[in-house]
């Protein structure tokens, strides 16, 4: 039937079926839903892109001060958090594969693992920031204001960019909690999983942003 149509498109079977074949009167626009998510992702790319430009400009103005300030960041924590986020991206994508293969329990376990890893990331971030603040390194602190302008800029960008990223992780955790409930209630199924897939797209975006934050902040020394 429409199997040939699907052969060059990885969209789920539900997308190709006329509305109402599964449950009466239900309209699904799989492509539209995914497109909408991608457009949102573009706005996120531009948002973080602007911050990366600000970082690049200030770094080229104060190369030595950025280099020196970056030396104070905890590289080990930065790398651990990278591995945590990369692994959480894997479990997220496996959760989608599992539900497509009709393995609901497995899908829920993978999704829950993603949430646990997201929490681990935030806990690491908390301890990292706590140590920095304990050392008097936070925007506007006396200790930081006494240091050269480039270092003040570095820490301002560090808190701003990793903070905005952390906010995205938090939002991602809330979204995944909702997805977990929907999975449990069979609102996300093997033939209707666009919500989970869009949540996945968001989570991977958060991962991509971190991929860029790691070398710019933690490995910049």
């Amino acid at each position: 039937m429409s199997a040939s149509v699907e052969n060059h498109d990885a969209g789920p079977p539900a997308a190709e079926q006329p509305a109402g074949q599964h449950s009466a009167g239900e309209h699904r626009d799989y492509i539209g839903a995914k497109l909408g998510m991608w457009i949102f992702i573009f706005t996120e790319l531009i948002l973080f892109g602007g911050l990366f430009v600000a970082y690049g400009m200030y770094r080229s103005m104060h190369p030595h001060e950025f280099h020196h300030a970056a030396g104070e960041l905890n590289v080990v924590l930065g790398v651990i958090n990278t591995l945590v986020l990369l692994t959480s991206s894997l479990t997220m994508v496996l959760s989608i594969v599992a539900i497509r293969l009709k393995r609901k329990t497995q899908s829920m376990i993978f999704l829950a693992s993603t949430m646990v890893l997201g929490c681990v990331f935030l806990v690491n971030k908390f301890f990292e920031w706590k140590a920095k603040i304990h050392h008097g390194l936070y925007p506007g602190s006396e200790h930081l204001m006494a240091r050269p302008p480039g270092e003040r800029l570095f820490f301002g960008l560090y808190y701003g960019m990793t903070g905005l990223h952390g906010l995205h992780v938090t939002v991602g955790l809330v979204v995944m909690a909702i997805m977990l409930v929907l999975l449990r209630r069979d609102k996300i199924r093997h033939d209707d999983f666009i919500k989970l897939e869009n949540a996945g797209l968001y989570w991977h975006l958060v991962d991509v942003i971190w991929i860029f934050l790691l070398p710019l902040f933690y490995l910049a020394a």
Partner: protein
Amino acid sequence: MNSSMEHEADDPHIVGYGTFIKVWLALVGLTALLVGLSVAGSPNLALVGLLVITPTKASLVFFYFMHLKYESAALKYMVAIAIAVLVIFVGLTFTDYLFR
């Protein structure tokens, strides 16, 4: 009808666990390489890491985890245009700064 729907549910295009685990291993390997290059101490090597390895990692996430590889041409072009806009925006800002 039912049997054909069953057949469609077993979509042959579901990418299996294996592919994604391999991509994850590649991402972890590239991260190790990136950290290795920056620890090696040479600023040039670290710059290569930043400009080559980081975009490679991001591409792996985009193409596999975000499923872009299996999407329609239209969506691929949209993503390409959005990234091109970002590159032009970043490029112009830097040329303005460097040559003013």
